[in-house]
C-alpha cells in the first residue's frame, strides 16, 4: 500500500513541476517536513545538498532518496517512476500533437517565438550558474564576492571545448577544484 501511496504522491509532484524539477523542492518541503514530519528542516537541507551534488536530475535524485528512505528499493522505484510518468506522457503527447498540426500558422508562429524563449532561458541559466560558481551575492551587493579561480575554470572550459569532450572537462575541473582546496 505504501508503494501505491508513494507512486501517486510523486505523480502529483510530476504534474506540478512547471519549468523544471526545482519546483518539487517547496512542494516536498510542505508535505514531508511540515505535514508528515518525516524530516527535520536540517535533514531536508542535507537531502537537497545530496541531490544537487550527485549526478543526474535533481528531482529524480530527491524522489529516489525519499522513496528509498520510506520503503526500500521498491519504494524508490515507485517514487521515481511516479515522478517521471506525467512528464513523459505530457511531453510525448505535446510533441505528437505539434507534429500533426505543424503546417498551421499558429504552430509556425509558436516555433518562431520559441527560439527567443530558448535564448532567454539559456541566459537565465547563465545567471543562475554564475551565482553559484563565480560570484556570491547572497550577502547583499556591498559584500559581493568574486572567485577569480573559478573564472579561470570558465575560461579554460571555453578554450578547450573544441578539443576535448565535455565529460573530460567536467572531470578535470572537479579534480582541479579538489586539488585547489588543499592550498
Amino acid at each position: 500500500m505504501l508503494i501505491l501511496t508513494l507512486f501517486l504522491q510523486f505523480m502529483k509532484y510530476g504534474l506540478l513541476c512547471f519549468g523544471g524539477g526545482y519546483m518539487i523542492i517547496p512542494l516536498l518541503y510542505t508535505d514531508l517536513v511540515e505535514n508528515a514530519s518525516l524530516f527535520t528542516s536540517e535533514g531536508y537541507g542535507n537531502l537537497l545538498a545530496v541531490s544537487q551534488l550527485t549526478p543526474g536530475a535533481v528531482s529524480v535524485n530527491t524522489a529516489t532518496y525519499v522513496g528509498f528512505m520510506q520503503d526500500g528499493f521498491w519504494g524508490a522505484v515507485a517514487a521515481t517512476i511516479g515522478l517521471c510518468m506525467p512528464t513523459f506522457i505530457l511531453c510525448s503527447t505535446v510533441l505528437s500533437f505539434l507534429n500533426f498540426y505543424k503546417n498551421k500558422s499558429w504552430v509556425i508562429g509558436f516555433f518562431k517565438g520559441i527560439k527567443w524563449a530558448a535564448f532567454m532561458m539559456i541566459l537565465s541559466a547563465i545567471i543562475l550558474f554564475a551565482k553559484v560558481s563565480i560570484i556570491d551575492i547572497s550577502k547583499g551587493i556591498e559584500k559581493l564576492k568574486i572567485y577569480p579561480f573559478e573564472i579561470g575554470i570558465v575560461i579554460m572550459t571555453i578554450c578547450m571545448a573544441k578539443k576535448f569532450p565535455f565529460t573530460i572537462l567536467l572531470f578535470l575541473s572537479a579534480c582541479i577544484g579538489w586539488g585547489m582546496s588543499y592550498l
Partner: protein
Amino acid sequence: MRILWLLFMEFFKIALFTIGGGLAMIPVIENTFVTKHKLLKESDITYMIGITQFVPGLIAINSAVYVGHKLAGWKGSFIATIGVILPSMLIIMIIAALFPLENLSNFHLLEAFQCVRACVLGMFLLLAYRVGKNLIKSIRDIPLLMVLLCCLFCVSNVVVIILLACVLGGLYETFGRQGAKKCSF
C-alpha cells in the same frame, strides 16, 4: 535498433557525468548529439529548450523525450527516459544505503563541485554564443533583445519571461521580419 542502443548509452552517460540537474544537461546533450554524432541540428536543440520549458515536468525528462522522439519515435523517447533516470537511481540508492544524511559538509567536495558548476557555466556561455549567432542576424533584432534582457533582470519568475519571450518573439518573427524562412521541427 542501433539508434535505440545509442540513445540509451548516450543518455546514461550524460546523466552519469552531469552534476547540477537537468539544466546542466542541456549543453552536454547539444555537444553529444549535434557535434559528436551529428544526428540533430542546432535549431533542434533550440526547439528542445523551448519545449522543455513549456511542458510541465522535469527538464531532463523532457529533453530526453524530445531527442528520443526526434530520432526514433515513442520507443526512442521511452529508452532515452530510462537512460536518463537509471544512473540517478543507482547512485542515490547506494548513497542512501551507505551514508547517513548528517555528516555531509566536506569542504574539499564542495570546492570540487563549485569548479564543476563553473565548468557548466562555461558550456552555457558557449551555447548562448551559438544560439545567439543564429538568432540575432541584423541590427533590427537588437531592440527586442534589449526589451527581453530588461525583463530578465527585473522579473524573477522564469516562466513569465519564457512566455513573454515566446509571444513577443513569435509576433516579431512573423510580422517584423520579411521573407522569414519556413521552419520545421
